[in-house]
């Protein structure tokens, strides 16, 4: 077992400009936001993002100019509506978007996770998605049925936010974890996996409850401790989304100039996640968002 505990800035330095970056979480939930802010501070460019149901993570990276291309089933803020930066950049032609349905994006990650080049699907027939770069018509060699192949989505690096882990990268979740995501599949698909967690715990604590490990050490390249690392999104069972901070983000992102100012103040200037949190919210507000109902 290797000690994989590194700093946020070391973690971001493992992600080169121009790489394909996998993102975990869903809509507002459990995105590695602190690491994303550090990626932006380090000035990464030309990233291809691959995710399932993208949210505030994708929108922030696109708004900061780090992204060339997004491949996903969705980019939006769920109950808060559209992703303003994605929309603006896509309409201006500043980024490329490749769209997949929820099952076909999962199929792309599954193919990579299994080490095979593509997966067949029946879902894209007749849709606009069938014409895209990573989709090809194929014929079932057994039945002759016309299908589509979707190419494996194999991120160079995939990043996640988890609950707690040991220094060796065994990522654990409470039993009440909301499993409506595909984090484990994306982690299996990627070449390198970086996970930020709320807390680093002793290896013995992990060993005592091995069934709580959902991303094990063998898959993980590096682990980083970042309390409240999913803010302004939520980390289910631990804290709720910060809707006040999200509304402030959306208000700033109404136009490109306003967003630039917000980005400088909230992302580029703070040196770490603690400084960011001091600007974006208050300790009282964070205490209100805490959930203590689930152990």
């Amino acid at each position: 077992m290797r000690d994989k505990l590194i700093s946020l800035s070391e973690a971001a330095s493992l992600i080169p400009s121009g790489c394909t970056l996998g993102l975990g979480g869903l809509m507002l939930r459990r995105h590695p936001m602190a690491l994303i802010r550090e990626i932006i501070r380090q000035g990464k460019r030309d990233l291809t993002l691959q995710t399932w149901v993208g949210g505030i993570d994708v929108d922030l990276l696109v708004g900061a100019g780090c992204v060339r291309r997004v491949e996903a089933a969705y980019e939006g803020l769920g109950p808060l509506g559209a992703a303003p930066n994605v929309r603006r950049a896509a309409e201006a032609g500043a980024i490329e978007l490749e769209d997949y349905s929820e099952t076909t994006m999962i199929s792309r990650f599954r193919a990579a996770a299994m080490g095979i080049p593509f997966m067949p699907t029946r879902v894209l027939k007749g849709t606009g998605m069938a014409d895209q770069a990573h989709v090809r018509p194929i014929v079932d060699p057994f039945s002759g049925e016309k299908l589509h192949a979707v190419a494996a989505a194999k991120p160079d690096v995939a990043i996640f936010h988890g609950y707690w882990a040991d220094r060796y990268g065994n990522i654990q979740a409470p039993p009440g974890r909301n499993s409506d995501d595909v984090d484990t599949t994306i982690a299996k698909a990627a070449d390198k996996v970086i996970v930020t967690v709320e807390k680093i715990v002793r290896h013995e604590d992990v060993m005592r409850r091995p069934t709580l490990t959902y991303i094990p050490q063998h898959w993980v390249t590096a682990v980083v401790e970042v309390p409240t690392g999913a803010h302004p999104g939520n980390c289910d069972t631990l804290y709720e989304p910060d809707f006040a901070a999200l509304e402030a983000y959306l208000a700033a992102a109404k136009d490109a100039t306003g967003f630039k100012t917000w980005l400088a103040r909230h992302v580029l200037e703070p040196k770490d996640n603690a400084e960011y949190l001091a600007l974006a919210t208050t300790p009282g507000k964070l205490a209100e968002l805490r959930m203590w109902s689930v152990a």
Partner: protein
Amino acid sequence: MSAPAYTINELMVAELSRHFRNDEIGFVGVGTSGRAFSLVVGIPLAAGRLAQLTTAPRFDLQIGPIIGPEMQELPERWNDSTVYSWAASGLIDGADNLDMFAKGRVDVGFVSGAQIDQYGNLNVTWIKGKDGRRIRLIGCLALPEHQACAGRSVILADLHPRVFVSEVDYITGVGWLKGGRSREEAGIHIGGGPQLVVTDKAIFDFAPESRRMRIKSLHPGVTVDEVVGLMGFRPEVPEKIPVTAPPSAGEVDLIRNTIDPRRLLLAHEPETAAKKRSAG
């Protein structure tokens, strides 16, 4: 004029509930807000519950990966922690959930779109603006699965000529494609396609030969001209069109007092109705 004894949402709920059968699974998605939430989440859930309480006690509901939620006790608010800690038979892995959808195990799915065309094709991805600029929407979510793989899909939307268009700019969720047998010829045969369109003014189905949208019933007080005037294409208009059966007093009572007493599901009425109310 005295106010009708029911709202448009309640009428849509009661009508939709009549299309559910015992032992079917209805699949409701999650991530929407405002009127869209009432259309594709609130109305289907309320209709499913109404069916459970009246005509189809074994109609089963699923909300994304949440299997068989406790419909007697809705969450206080609709957000991540409240919805996902809702009492239910199961909350399964996202991919497991969608596997069953793609396999064809969902009987009825509920969908809407920024554009809906005469063949029930739906678009939530890109639309063409007036000046030729492309306008980006949200992507796809599981709309393709609903339309291709569900036993049948029900489209819910308020009538508007910008929404009900002759041809969608982009097919996110495939309906009857170009009509006739084009869906079958394209090899789309897991699910049964769109069968019903529930709107604020009328109910539609699809004509069996042309597969074009056809007026099935008009809501009380609504005329054919009013409906056609709110659509960007002329639907098929049968000679005789019945009136949509309004909800009974008992159904309204169930919706208001048992199913959705805090108006969580049916918070947003159609916008035109809301505007009319505020104007008058």
